[in-house]
């Protein structure tokens, strides 16, 4: 039985959205001015004609979109001048997401994202809007509804999770364009107003701390608050349903987002701990499934902060073979005891390089000495923290090369454990430096076969054991 759907009418806004601030709104402003002052310039006439052409094209493109669902296949046809037709086997769909924003609620539509392992990272395979009932029908057809265990978070747990996972960078990415565009729309210099306020407050404490340091600290706090509020709204109502085959994640306060995927679509699982999570003895669990977490500002975090006990339940629920990794009798290939100093070499070079650069800046620009001292102190603190992470990697890092590959390492400024079934491993890379030949060690890097290209590296582990395991698994002599 084949069912066919057309796109919802409001999908046309997807095609005109990129031109909204640079073309459409200025043209509309010009037209409004004409209606007020009866003063029509040649440019506005041309722009209005172009606007009509753009809207007409968007409508035609929206009407050309068709999606049909048969027993095993999903066919997506779209395009006006460049028509495309893709036929995807339903079992190859790695995850499907349906979201209902306030605009979708008003127009009785829903936004669907269908993803496979193909395509590029951070880009969805297919995204479109359907009528709400059609969208949910498609959602339930691709991955059937199952009876499942529901896990919900309390508000306090949610606050803690959001605080632990929010970052200043997210706040900057969200806040800066929003402030700029809001200022342009309202015709009011919000950005200038904020900068003036920031300078005024920074200068009040200028006697104790350099004003530029105050300004940077206040900016960090401001953007962190923006990210925190944004994440709270995004993750409010977070719950997941774990069934026999499928998993569903629901979240969102203003825009409700539901994502469903099959457990076998999980490529790998990462448990991470940032500095704050390590203090609180909590873990963040991130899943790698094709297309999960590709939305703007999204991550593929399944649980941003859970206890060790719940992390194990999680892991065993997705990867029963993980018990094999964490059980007794499983050989963990650990860093050699003589390689501790090698963990410090890389960060030390980085630190010395930064200090040299800062010194060069003070020579050429002596008036920023105070700021440079602050930056040097900050870099020193970061360096010391990173050294502690490297010590952690030496003491606790390992590689398990089995039916489930498991690498414990550090990624950036977080500690992480990567679990990946052997079938999903893409490339195993073994690197040996000159000192590795002396210590009989090597570094093992495992890349996962997925669109994210997740990888993890165990440093300076015993080469003999790695060689033995690689031969056992792949019958290859290293």
């Amino acid at each position: 039985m084949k069912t066919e759907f057309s796109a919802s009418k409001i999908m046309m806004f997807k095609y005109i959205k990129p031109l909204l601030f640079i073309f459409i709104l200025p043209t509309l402003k010009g037209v409004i001015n004409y209606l007020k002052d009866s003063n029509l310039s040649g440019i506005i006439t041309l722009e209005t004609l172009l606007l009509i052409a753009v809207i007409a094209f968007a409508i035609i493109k929206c009407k050309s979109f068709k999606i049909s669902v048969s027993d095993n296949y999903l066919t997506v046809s779209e395009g006006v001048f460049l028509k495309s037709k893709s036929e995807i086997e339903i079992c190859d769909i790695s995850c499907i997401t349906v979201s209902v924003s306030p605009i979708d609620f008003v127009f009785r539509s829903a936004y669907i994202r269908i993803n496979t392992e193909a395509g590029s990272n951070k880009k969805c395979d297919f995204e479109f809007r359907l009528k709400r009932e059609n969208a949910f029908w498609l959602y339930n057809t691709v991955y059937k509804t199952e009876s499942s265990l529901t896990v919900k978070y309390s508000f306090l747990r949610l606050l803690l999770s959001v605080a632990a996972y929010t970052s200043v960078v997210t706040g900057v990415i969200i806040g800066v364009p929003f402030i700029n565009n809001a200022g342009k729309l309202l015709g009011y210099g919000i950005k200038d107003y904020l900068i003036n306020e920031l300078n005024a407050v920074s200068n009040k404490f200028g006697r104790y701390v350099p004003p530029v340091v105050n300004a940077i600290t206040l900016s960090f706090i401001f953007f962190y608050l923006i990210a925190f509020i944004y994440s709270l709204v995004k993750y409010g109502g977070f719950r997941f349903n774990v069934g026999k085959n499928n998993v569903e994640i629901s979240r969102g306060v203003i825009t409700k987002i539901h994502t469903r995927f099959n457990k076998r679509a999980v490529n790998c699982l990462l448990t991470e701990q940032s500095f704050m999570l390590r203090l609180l003895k909590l873990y963040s669990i991130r899943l790698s499934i094709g297309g999960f977490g590709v939305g703007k500002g999204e991550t593929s975090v399944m649980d941003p902060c859970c206890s060790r006990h719940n992390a194990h339940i999680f892991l065993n629920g997705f990867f029963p073979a993980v018990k094999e990794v964490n059980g007794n009798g499983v050989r963990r290939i650990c860093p050699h005891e003589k390689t501790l100093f090698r963990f410090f070499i890389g960060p030390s070079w980085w630190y010395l390089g930064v200090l040299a650069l800062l010194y060069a800046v003070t020579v050429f620009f002596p008036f920023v000495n105070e700021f440079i001292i602050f930056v040097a102190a900050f870099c020193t603190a970061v360096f010391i923290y990173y050294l502690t992470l490297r010590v952690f990697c030496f003491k606790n890092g390992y590689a398990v090369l089995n039916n489930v590959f498991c690498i414990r390492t550090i990624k950036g400024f977080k500690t992480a454990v990567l679990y990946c079934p052997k079938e999903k491993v893409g490339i195993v890379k073994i690197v040996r430096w000159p000192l590795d030949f002396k210590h009989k060690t090597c570094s093992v890097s495992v890349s996962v076969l997925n669109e994210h290209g997740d990888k993890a590296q165990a440093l300076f582990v015993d080469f003999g054991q790695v060689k033995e395991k690689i031969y056992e698994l792949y019958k290859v002599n290293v």
Partner: protein
Amino acid sequence: MTAYKLTKKCVVLWQIRILLLALFLCGIAVWFFHISYAFIFTAVSVISLAFVFGFWYFPQYAKNFSLEITDTAVTVKSGVIIKTVKIMPLLRTIYVTRYSTLLSSAFKLNSLCLRAARGILITPEIDIDACLKVERAVKGED
């Protein structure tokens, strides 16, 4: 194993596209003549390049191109100066997209895009039957 080549229709299609593009660029260059006569050189360069691509490069490319379908993989051989062979295992291919434009539909040609995890293989316009054959091979129906 089944092998497909680019047909003369595909060569003509690309010659038409190159001609249209050359006309468009020459038109812009001619429009700027009143600013500087140096744009004559631009127009001459565009026409020369169009000749080279339309009457030498693309016919050679079509002659060297082949698409082979076996039980296990799709292989595309192409190139004029630098020859490349791209192999996409059928097991790793997740889905196939067919593209057509107004012109290529008139010639009954479609271009193919085979997608795998972190991999993509695009072919120029080939016969629709060949495209359907590749699709069936990816689905495992052949």
